[in-house]
């Protein structure tokens, strides 16, 4: 996809420009002010050659030292003014630019929070990153180096022409007879250099890609004894880059001297024609000197116009990509209708009572729950309205390959159900659908008797807690990872939750305790510790319904016992849907749903299903009896972006 990112379009696109300018609207007054300052600065700069003329004609030639003093004073004043205006202009422009970039980045980030989860399946993270960071930065370049200076230059050029025409229109015409030359030189140069820069960019990209590929594939290169050949290839790519640059060096070597030469031609013309006028038509020497100075000032901005053109062109390409992302369709689950305050309040009102049944006081509710007889509880649960209902649900990620095919089952309030099935049987997908990460292709899912589509998605996700097998931790502290933005939770509540699931002891042992930093997704914590943290953060939010994707990674026996006990506490009295990998978990649930090739094949208790001697009994033998031999029974996580791969050091080609 880097290919897309290299394509450069037009430097100026009305539609894009209008939309970009729209971002300036909140800063209208600052922009106007900056414009005024630019104008003022350009005017001040214009006066200096004129002052030189006055000094020569009225001061020096008339031997009027007092007049010279006078001019010097004005000169000094204007220097001060130029300093102030120059500074001001820069400050205001850059400030506005930076604020616009801030707004744009914020808009992009918030957009990313509203895109459907499926969008992330299709677009690699790297590309999305480029939008928020690099593309915005290219626009930033436009702001810092481009537009402001462009207007300043334009003012200056116009001002110079006006000033020169006031001094002597005839001499102006003679001097500017070189303008067509400048135009030709600049246009030819611009065309050449543009092609050349594009070539350099492509070559550099190729060089970097080659280098990157060889660094990451170095072990393959070395195993296949490819070093000499790859070095030869690199030399070619490197030479291509060098030669592309040499071409640009050549154009620069021609352009800048030629431009200076044209400038010298203008000065020669002034000396020749202006000198004649001084002798015979009586213009002053001061005018002549001022003319030379104006001419020199005129040439300066022209040479970097082509550079600004380049910046503009790149900025347009980036703007286009940014707007494409901003225009991508958003997650229908987050549609404003469902998210209106009224709807949210209503949804939360229905969500609360069920959730509130599990009091936050962990120990107290544990005791009462433990007292109830399981059989009685199950009977009571079945009588009530189902809490979660899958009603003939089918789902395909892409095309028409059904990952789930006509799945129907219900979970009663407080009931614990395990999903069992081989890899790829659709268990994880089912959990994703319940959280409305995706919309079912056919069928309906109901929570508390209401279709998911009728729920405010935030209320839904508060009601349904999720524990993923690959625990994703954010950089921050242990506490911020437990809290996850729920500011209403007190530290005590978090600690209580951590104690309940046995996370507290290890957190206490960390340096800093709850304030201990979590870095690089919790790489410093063991996988067992990460799981306990995940339990604690879900428990702290006390969701009415729990989805648990049990981790398969092996931990030591002691940690395993802690996790098992924590799991029991987490599921106690809570409607739970567990993607189970552990025998003890399976034996602990009320019912088991067996998924096979996307279909529900068996439902029943552990004992019932074993007795049936069907798929479950075979799966059971496979996964829970012989899983400890040489075979990897580890399921590939489907839900999280990170794939569980073998430890790097174990492969002979760790880089490949």
């Amino acid at each position, binding site marked *: 996809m880097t290919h897309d990112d290299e394509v450069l379009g037009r430097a100026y696109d009305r539609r894009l420009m209008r939309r970009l300018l729209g971002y300036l609207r909140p800063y209208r007054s600052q922009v106007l002010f900056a414009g005024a300052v630019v104008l003022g600065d350009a005017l001040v700069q214009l006066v200096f050659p004129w002052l030189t003329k006055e000094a020569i004609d009225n001061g020096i030639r008339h031997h009027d030292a007092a007049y010279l003093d006078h001019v010097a004073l004005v000169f000094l004043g204007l220097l001060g003014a130029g*300093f102030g205006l120059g500074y001001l202009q820069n400050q205001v422009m850059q400030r506005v630019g930076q604020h616009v970039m801030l707004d744009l980045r914020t808009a992009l980030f918030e957009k990313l929070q509203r895109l459907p989860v499926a969008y992330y399946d299709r677009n690699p993270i790297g590309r999305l990153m480029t939008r928020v960071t690099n593309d915005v930065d290219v626009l930033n370049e436009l702001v810092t180096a481009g537009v402001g200076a462009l207007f300043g230059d334009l003012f200056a050029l116009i001002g110079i022409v006006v000033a020169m025409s006031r001094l002597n229109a005839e001499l102006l015409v003679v001097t500017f007879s070189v303008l067509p030359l400048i135009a030709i030189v600049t246009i030819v140069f611009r065309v050449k250099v543009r092609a050349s820069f594009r070539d350099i960019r492509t070559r550099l990209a190729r060089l970097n890609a080659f280098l990157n590929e060889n660094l990451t594939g170095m072990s393959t290169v070395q195993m296949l004894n490819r070093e000499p050949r790859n070095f030869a290839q690199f030399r070619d790519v490197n030479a291509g880059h060098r030669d592309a640059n040499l071409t640009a060096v050549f154009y620069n070597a021609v352009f800048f001297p030629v431009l200076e030469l044209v400038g010298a031609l203008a000065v020669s013309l002034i000396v020749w024609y202006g000198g004649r006028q001084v002798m015979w038509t009586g213009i002053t020497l001061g005018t002549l000197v001022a003319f030379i100075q104006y001419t020199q000032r005129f040439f300066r901005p022209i040479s970097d116009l082509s550079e600004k053109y380049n910046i503009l062109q790149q900025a347009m390409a980036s703007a286009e990509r940014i707007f494409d992302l901003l225009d991508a369709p958003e997650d229908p689950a987050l549609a404003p209708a469902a998210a209106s305050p009224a709807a949210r309040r209503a949804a939360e009102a229905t969500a609360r009572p069920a959730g509130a049944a599990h009091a936050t006081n962990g120990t107290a509710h544990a005791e009462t729950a433990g007292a109830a007889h399981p059989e009685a509880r199950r009977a009571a649960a079945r009588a009530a309205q189902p809490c979660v209902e899958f009603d003939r649900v089918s789902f395909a990620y892409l095309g028409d390959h059904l990952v789930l095919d006509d799945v129907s089952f219900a979970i009663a309030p407080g009931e614990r159900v395990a999903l069992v099935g081989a890899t790829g049987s659709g268990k994880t997908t089912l959990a994703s659908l319940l959280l409305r990460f995706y919309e079912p292709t056919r069928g309906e899912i109901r929570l508390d008797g209401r279709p998911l589509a009728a729920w405010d998605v935030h209320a839904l996700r508060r009601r349904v807690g999720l524990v993923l097998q690959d625990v994703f931790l954010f950089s921050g502290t242990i506490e911020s990872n437990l809290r996850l933005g729920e500011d209403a939770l007190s530290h005590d509540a978090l600690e209580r939750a951590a104690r309940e699931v046995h996370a507290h002891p290890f957190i206490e042992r960390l340096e800093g305790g709850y304030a201990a930093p979590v870095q690089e997704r919790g790489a410093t914590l063991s996988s067992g510790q990460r799981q306990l943290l995940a339990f604690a953060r879900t428990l702290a939010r006390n969701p009415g319904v729990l989805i648990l994707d049990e981790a398969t990674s092996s931990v030591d026996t002691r940690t395993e016992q802690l996790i098992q006990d924590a799991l029991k506490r987490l599921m106690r009295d809570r409607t739970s849907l567990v993607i189970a990998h552990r025998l003890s978990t399976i034996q602990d649930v009320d019912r088991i749903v067996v998924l096979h090739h996307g279909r529900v094949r068996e439902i029943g208790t552990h004992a019932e299903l074993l007795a049936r001697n069907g798929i479950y009994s075979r799966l059971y033998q496979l996964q829970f009896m012989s899983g400890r031999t040489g075979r990897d029974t580890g399921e590939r996580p489907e839900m999280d972006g990170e794939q569980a791969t073998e430890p790097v050091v174990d492969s002979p080609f760790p880089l490949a």
Partner: protein
Amino acid sequence: MKGARPLLRGLDARLLPYVTRYRRGLVWGVTCVALTNVIALAQPQVLRFAIDDLYRGVTAEKLGRYAIILFAIALTAAVFKYWMRQSVIAISRHIEYDLRNDLFAHLQRLSVSYFQHARTGEIMSRATNDVSAVRMMLGPGIMYLVNTAVVAVVSIGFMLSISPRIALYALAPLPLVSLCAWFFGERIHRRFEEIQAQFAMLSAKVQENLAGVRVVRAFTRERGESDEFRDLNRDYLDKNLQLIRTSGLFYPALAFLSGTAALLALYLGGREVIATHITLGQFVAFTWYLGMLNWPMVALGWVINLFQRGVASFGRLEQLLEVEPAIVSAPDAVRPASCRGEIEFRDLTFHYPGVAAPALEHISFRVRAGQTVALVGRTGSGKSTLLALLPRVFDPPPGAVLLDGHDVRDVDVAWLRAQIACTPQETFLFSATLAENVAYGAADASDDAIRRAASIAGLDSDVSGFPDGFETRVGERGITLSGGQKQRTAIARAVLRDAPLLVLDDCLSSVDTHTEDAILHGLRGEMRGRTTLLVSHRVSTVRDADLIVVLDAGRVVEQGTHAELMAAGGAYAELSRSQQLEEELEAS
């Protein structure tokens, strides 16, 4: 000046060869820099005579002559200026090229263990940013340094000759210009680096948010994430505003200082003309010289920054170039004429560098030439580590791994690797055509050979479906191969290598059973006469091996033939049973 010392330190023995290679071109380039300036500096003198003549009265003919001389001078200066860029700047590009080539060649010599710890991004930054900084020092750095020196000496000389007094006053602010450029340049650079660091944090936040999108959604963290991003975004803005405060002062300050010099020249020079100490022509020439000095003085400050950065970058490059390759052929390495393919592991115990627990412990077994040995064991049991020691991806302890009775550490590394055709666990494809990828380890292979290898690997039916067949590009700019297709490409690669040893590290895990059978059937022919080491999870793949070695936690727990191990009823037998169950389940 502060920049001078590091400059000399930087041009040490390592950098010098890069420069001296181009000394003739550089001498010519520097001469051009001097000539173009000396010639251009004659212009104000011509103008001076022209104006003095105008003041006194002049003929049109003489005016015309002045104009022509002015233009002729400019033309000559322009020609030398062209040569200046074409030599000095072009040479800096050549040096950049040389430096980057040497860096790449060096990187290729470093062993896998180096790349495990080094970050690719950092090495990339050496090869791009740092090489570029060195080039800036040697190209524009040298050019503008000489430029400033020549312009300063000549124009100050002329100015002194016109009026020492005005020259001393008017020149007073100019060193401040250099100082200003150096001072601000350094600060701006530092601020800029702070901005980059903040930018990296911002990127990390976005990366984290995108990678954890499901957790963010499930925990309704969108708002909180946005708030956190907003804070980081704010900090980034503040850092940028800090830069603006510094850099915003830079150009106005430069303009003010050079303006002050011009003011002094105008004021003092004007009084001198009134007092008839100097002519009007001299006065105009003087101000012109002053104007010509402006840019070189700014450049001087900039050049000092260039040298500071260049020296720092070269220091980093030097560090990288000084890393010793860990795995090289011994000085007295042997290159046997042929390879029978007999492998022996002799009480092999291996630790990864810096890891206390051994990855392999007391491994001993022998593979006779032409035999097939299968390694079985769960993830992390050490199978792949064992295979990695044979081609010296990592160095085994002396005398522990032998090929044809030679310690692998005693033979030439390139020879050793040429005897081994291996498929890694994870196939790395290069962005090239499929044919080139298959022939990656056998550059001179014919099309027929490539096709045959692909057919043995079961890749041919897939290839016919690709838009350009074997000429289809894979990787970033082409099609993406599935895991199974990648693995089969690796198998084709190994087949085409035609080496006495075949090492297959779990190379069929991503293909279905039916395809696996077909590939295995094809491979059997290839395995005949070759020594084969193979890792697999599937009993069906390993059952025909001459020897099956079961590893657990770095130790051999069982070894024998399929029949023997089944009879023993240990871990292997259990594995076999569970796979049978799985097959039944799959069929149901």
